[in-house]
């Protein structure tokens, strides 16, 4: 596992630091990276909000078919990402039956990333909510707190580490995602080209050093995200023996 990564880092600099810098600082590369980071950030924020709501509904609410909905959450983990991309194209593409066409646009990319990262926040928040006794909320209510205040002051602080950890995992996944994005994005340079697709293009045009350079950059971002997850995990378990 480490050997391939070492080869990657070594290759990215084998034509000197100048070329490395050139490869990652050319406008197309920067545009792709910027797009990747911005769309991922937006998607992750949406995930944080909706993921928490979905988790709350799945834990605290009760309705017919809840267990099926609960199982459906894992669908993006089970479904091949290229299929996910195609499914989104089928509903929200050029021949959309609902009249929404987001293919070859940044909204399309966002939609695809939303799909593939949907489970992360739900699945990190769910167990925490499940463990969270209603006592605390009842105690807060008996002390005169209104429901919004209870959510903000009692529930949210407990959930924050789990949400953050889900957000970090979603973010890592989003910046590296290719399968679901490759079809729906249309891969238009400067407009809808994300980094992973850009790297694939560089490899296909035999510009391996350039691809390696951008890959190392993504690798570095992944590392930082991973460290972030580790940090959150340590923080979360600090009360455990």
């Amino acid at each position, binding site marked *: 596992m480490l050997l*391939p990564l070492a080869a990657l880092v070594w290759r990215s600099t084998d034509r000197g630091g100048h070329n490395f810098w050139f490869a990652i600082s050319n406008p197309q590369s920067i545009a792709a990276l910027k797009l990747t980071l911005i769309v991922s950030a937006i998607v992750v924020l949406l995930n944080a909000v909706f993921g928490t709501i*979905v988790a709350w509904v799945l834990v605290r609410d009760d309705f017919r078919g809840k267990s099926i909905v609960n199982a459906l*959450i894992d669908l993006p983990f089970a479904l091949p990402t*290229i299929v996910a991309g195609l499914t989104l194209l089928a509903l929200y593409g050029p021949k959309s039956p609902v009249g929404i066409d987001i293919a070859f646009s940044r909204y399309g990319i966002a939609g695809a990333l939303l799909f593939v990262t949907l489970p992360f926040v739900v699945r990190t928040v769910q167990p925490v909510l499940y463990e969270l006794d209603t006592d605390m909320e009842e105690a807060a209510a008996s002390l005169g707190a209104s429901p919004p205040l209870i959510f903000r002051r009692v529930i949210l602080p407990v959930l924050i580490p789990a949400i953050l950890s889900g957000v970090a995992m979603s973010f890592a996944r989003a910046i590296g995602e290719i399968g679901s994005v490759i079809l729906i994005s249309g891969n238009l340079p400067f407009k809808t080209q994300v980094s992973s697709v850009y790297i694939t293009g560089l490899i296909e045009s035999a510009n391996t050093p350039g691809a390696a350079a951008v890959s190392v950059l993504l690798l570095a971002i992944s590392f930082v995200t*991973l460290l972030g997850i580790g940090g959150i995990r340590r923080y979360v378990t600090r009360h455990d023996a």
Partner: protein
Amino acid sequence: MRSKLSLRLVALCYLAVVLVGPVVMVFYRAFESGVGDFWRAISDGQAAHALWLTVLIALIAVPLNTIFGVALSLAIVRRKFPGKGLVNAFVDLPLALSPVVVGLALLLLYGRQGWLGPWFLDHGVQVVYALPAMVLATIFVSLPFVVREVVPVLREIGDEQEQAASTLGANGWQTFRRITLPAIRWGVAYGVVLTAARSLGEFGAVNVVSGRIQGKTETATLYIDAAYLDFNQKGAYAVSVVLALISVVILVAMSIFKPKEETA
């Protein structure tokens, strides 16, 4: 009570728009012009080969990752060794890493100008643009799943049962087979299911290392991509549906094997 209902509505609408709607649509498109057309599309030589190759890779990668994953989990939880913290941190790396980066890294190591590529070529083994690299890429990206599921279970059950077995005269292998393995079996099963899902659906890394030779190194996911771009939408949707059906089976397996406390 009203806020509860509206929250439920928000959650379900969100899931419908992002998740369920698109999936239903693919099924609709695939069967739009009848089951016969669907069957012709997937039994087309290229599509059938792609599906077979995907299954073959999964059949090699999943058992290897299962054995390796269980062994690594035991090492992480039960043994002390130098660099354990590092190993622990690196296990999750494939989850945070773009599959494209993984593919490129393998290409650079095993490719013609890579560190190990020439050695393999001299011994008559073509690694990149062939099955070995595709299997390696799949193993790499699906490596963490078994470990991530088994490690917490091993921690949870503790080592008392294993100690008890050893005082009763069981040797290491007997203890593993009769005590440890039965105790972690659901965790392993869940990890295997996740590994299988990831292996079958892998696109980015395999895309890079396979060379995408039609009828040779084209997996099902690569076929979908190529078919769609070739305006063979029928083929793309049909193979997608096959993969989606496998996903449904996997999903059912996941909800069966999932650790109890997570299923609220």
